């Protein structure tokens, strides 16, 4: 790809009070690319993801979506967020809505799409995540894995240009991790641009186009998964990988 990256981080700095959590991040995610961000806890990888959706504000630098600066003070945040889907560790489904209700809410309220059309679309999306039989279930009636798949369908309902996944399997029982990763695998295969923060190294190695290792608020190393996992360039990466074994 010769064009500029779809999602670009440029010298991004973020502070929580006195704590410097992102120390000048430069990173680009190309269209159709799947970037997996890994690193020890506290490395700033989740914060980086949240900054990309303006759930956190940055203090320095810029983040652009298809060339549009989304961190500018006059950016139309609501419009930009529609183009960036986000899936959370804790699902954050709306408990007062059914699975279908969760998926249709934003298209109806934000886009003004007619109920019937939104329902049809929800049907398709829930089928895509393997939950067409659960459309009328409330979140509390679903397993964690099912809830997370509804959350993915909900994010997809806004037809985002890029999807952000923030440790989406960390809160799941081990036997439920697979179904969520499966959905993500399918998405990647369909060419969705994705930025994934995860501890699932198997998934990272198998699906990622590129691995980004973060530590202490900095990017330590990036690279092709195969090369990164077998022959890390930096000592920090080697250390991190050795602890996983």
């Amino acid at each position, binding site marked *: 790809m010769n064009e500029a990256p779809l999602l670009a981080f440029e010298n991004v700095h973020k502070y929580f009070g006195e704590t410097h959590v992102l120390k000048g991040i430069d990173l680009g995610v190309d269209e159709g690319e799947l970037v997996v961000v890994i690193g020890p806890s506290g490395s700033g990888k989740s914060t980086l993801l949240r900054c990309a*959706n303006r*759930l956190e504000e940055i203090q320095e630098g810029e983040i652009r979506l298809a060339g549009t600066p989304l961190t500018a003070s006059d950016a139309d945040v*609501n*419009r930009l*967020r*529609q183009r*960036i*889907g*986000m899936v*959370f560790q*804790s*699902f*954050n*489904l*709306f*408990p*007062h809505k059914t699975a279908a209700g969760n998926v249709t*809410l*934003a298209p109806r*309220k*934000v886009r003004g799409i007619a109920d019937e059309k939104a329902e049809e679309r929800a049907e398709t999306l829930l089928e895509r995540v393997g939950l067409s039989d659960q459309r009328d279930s*409330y*979140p*509390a009636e679903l397993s964690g894995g099912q*809830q997370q798949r509804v*959350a993915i369908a*909900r*994010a997809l309902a*806004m037809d985002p240009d890029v999807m952000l996944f923030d440790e989406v399997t960390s*809160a799941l029982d081990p036997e439920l991790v697979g179904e969520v990763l499966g959905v993500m695998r399918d998405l990647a295969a369909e060419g969705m641009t994705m930025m994934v923060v995860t501890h699932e190294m198997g998934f990272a190695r198998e699906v990622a186009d590129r691995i980004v290792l973060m530590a202490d608020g900095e990017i330590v190393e990036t690279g092709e998964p195969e090369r990164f996992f077998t022959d890390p360039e930096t000592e920090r990466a080697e250390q991190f990988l050795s602890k996983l074994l």
Partner: protein
Amino acid sequence: MSETGTGGPIASDETFRRLGMAAALVVALSVGAFLALLFLSGHVIPGRQLINYGLLAELAQPSSDYYGAYINILQVFLLTAVMSVICGVFVGLGRISKTPLTAGIARLYVEFFRGTPFLFQIMAIYYGVPAFFEPGTFPLTNFTWPAAIVALTLNHAAYSGEALRGGIESLPTGQMEAARSLGMSYVQAMRNVVLPQAWRNAVPAVGNDLIILVKDTSLLSVIAFPELISQFQYTYSQQFEAWAPLVLVGVFYLTITVPLSALVNYAGEVADPSRRAEP
């Protein structure tokens, strides 16, 4: 050691259960004895009839002024219940606002209306507001009703606002974040995601406040609002009979508060917390 205690100062569960039952029984028997004495006093103590049943029947007749008073408090209650809950939503939203000015004003509002007695507020409005006008020039000639409605609304909006704030703050922040991440504006997220859930959390507290609202109408007697306590005072000063009007007034209040309390419990069950997602 399967026992709950090892001879400590606090009673064992079984003893505690029995003590509780005994205490409840004593209370129930005392109340029963009191009521029997009250209602059957003429038979129990010769010549000492506490409830003048003739007067009670007279006061309970359809033409009695007590019904007018009852209708009055029902009307003022229904009106201010709706208004105070609506205003309470705005107070609650103000309290959780990230804008310091809005949050500050909302906070002052709540502090004032919760921090001063309702009696003070109703007097400040009914006697204080017309004092801004020259004698005889105050334009609202029947200020009792507006004063009552405004005072009850302002006071109870503070309480339902705080109840709603509690309901909002008890929601995981992820709810707002998820809604915003889908591109909803703050207002859309509040309206469609946060408030419907916060409302369910707030139902017991708001319902409780509505019951207090019914009882607060009694304080309107100080502004010559024709309500039940004034009616009692009137009968009492005319007839020197306490219990006949007291029984009637008590029954009237309970005909509002008991169904209301049942409604609140029902609403609380409908707002089933088990529907809330685990984090």
